């Protein structure tokens, strides 16, 4: 869980960095040129396409292992308590990683359907390409703009990002404990870093659909 978790944390960093290119439109009114170029680079570079396979492997392993672990741990106490220890001893989100992960999974299915499937296979919504310096590429910026018109999509994306934030609030520091980081110096750093990461990254992600929806960009 910890190793795949840390791997997925690094993926989030790459994902949010690439996507942050949409905000170039806010400053230089490039109509998504920087973002489309970045997306084209990610989609057309062989090395990155190979890494994409690794990414899917990592996600699937994380999900399967997560569910197996949750089921196994639940089976260890056949007779439960009349009164649960609850929030007195631990945070609700630490105890709800399975639930939060499931919410993220639901979001992820929809998210892949919105962007990954059209970009790789169906090309729905990407019929008209953009051309920069003679290179033809998908207008992913336009696809984001049209996808985020729907308020239902916005609600699902907010749910996904909020779940991700709570999932990371526990997962980030827990992952490092599992791989054995116990020095006080690093633990203090990792706990602060973990909370910072869990707030900043999902916040940046959610800013994107909101910016398109309310017309701040695009």
């Amino acid at each position, binding site marked *: 869980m910890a190793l795949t978790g840390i791997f997925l944390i690094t993926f989030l960093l790459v994902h949010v960095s690439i996507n942050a290119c949409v905000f170039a439109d806010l400053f230089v009114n490039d109509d998504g040129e920087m973002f489309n170029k970045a997306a084209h680079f990610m989609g057309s570079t062989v090395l990155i396409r190979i890494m994409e396979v690794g990414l899917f492997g990592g996600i699937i392993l994380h999900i399967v292992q997560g569910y197996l*672990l949750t089921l*196994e*741990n639940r*089976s*260890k*106490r*056949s*007779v*439960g*308590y*009349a*009164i*649960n*220890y*609850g929030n*007195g*001893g*631990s*945070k609700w989100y*630490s*105890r709800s*990683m399975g639930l939060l992960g499931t919410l993220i999974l639901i979001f992820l299915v929809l998210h892949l359907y919105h962007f990954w499937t059209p970009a790789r296979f169906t090309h729905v919504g990407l019929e008209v390409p953009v051309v920069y310096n003679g290179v033809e590429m998908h207008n992913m910026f336009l696809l984001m703009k049209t996808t985020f018109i729907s308020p239902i999509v916005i609600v699902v994306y907010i749910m996904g990002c909020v779940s991700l934030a709570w999932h990371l609030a*526990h997962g980030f*520091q*827990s992952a*490092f*404990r*599992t*791989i*054995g*980081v*116990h020095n*006080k110096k690093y*633990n203090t750093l990792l706990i602060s870093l973990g909370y910072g990461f869990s707030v900043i990254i999902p916040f940046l992600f959610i800013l994107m659909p909101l910016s398109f929806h309310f017309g701040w960009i695009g």
Partner: protein
Amino acid sequence: MEHYTMNLNLKVWRQKNATAKGGFENYSVSNISSEMSFLEMFDVLNEKLIAEGKEPIAFDHDCREGICGMCSMYINGKPHGPWQATTTCQLHMRAFKDGDTIVVEPWRANAFPVVKDLAVDRGAFDRIIQAGGFVSVNTGNAVDGNALPIEKDKADAAFYAAACIGCGACVAACKNSSAMLFLSAKVSHLALLPQGGPERRSRVVNMVAQMDKEGFGSCTNTGACEATCPKEISISNIARLNQEYLAASLVSE
């Protein structure tokens, strides 16, 4: 602190034997002194039950001074009751008010089967210790106390870990019924000291294997164990155990 007496309602788990179904029974006790310990209150209740010709409630206890790790009651949703860093025997009745209802359950974990009423079998912990929680290399005759240099910080950390009394509250508090806090205390205490060095690797591998065999769950770092531990064993011991285990399993045969 002012002394007062109280009348209480108790809801206690009763179970005839390991295979019986069990259920809650309601009792009331009166004129309980605020200066009594929780177990003394149970003694009063049991005296009453015996006088009435009923079966007294079975519960584990021994030293009654917070150092043996035998007492094991899950009181009002927390192992060892409402106070921090306190065993059930050191919990005093001033923690409660007149008219309170107190729910008392045994430790719940499949690895700790109920023997009777509130007494559970914690033999799994003994078997984990037997798998490696000791030093078996020949250390020769007793040497001068200061002949073996040990860093003060490490000696302190080892001592804090060694404070674990093996009561099992960590398992009872954990949503996964994991024994990692117990095991990490036992592994850390020896791993931090030079005497534990020679068997450091085989110890952690064997003890973890025994823990898994006993049917405890895995650790998801929720921190409930640390919050309930009567000896305030730190969860950072679990991270140390993970490091010890990873390092040992990478080089084990």
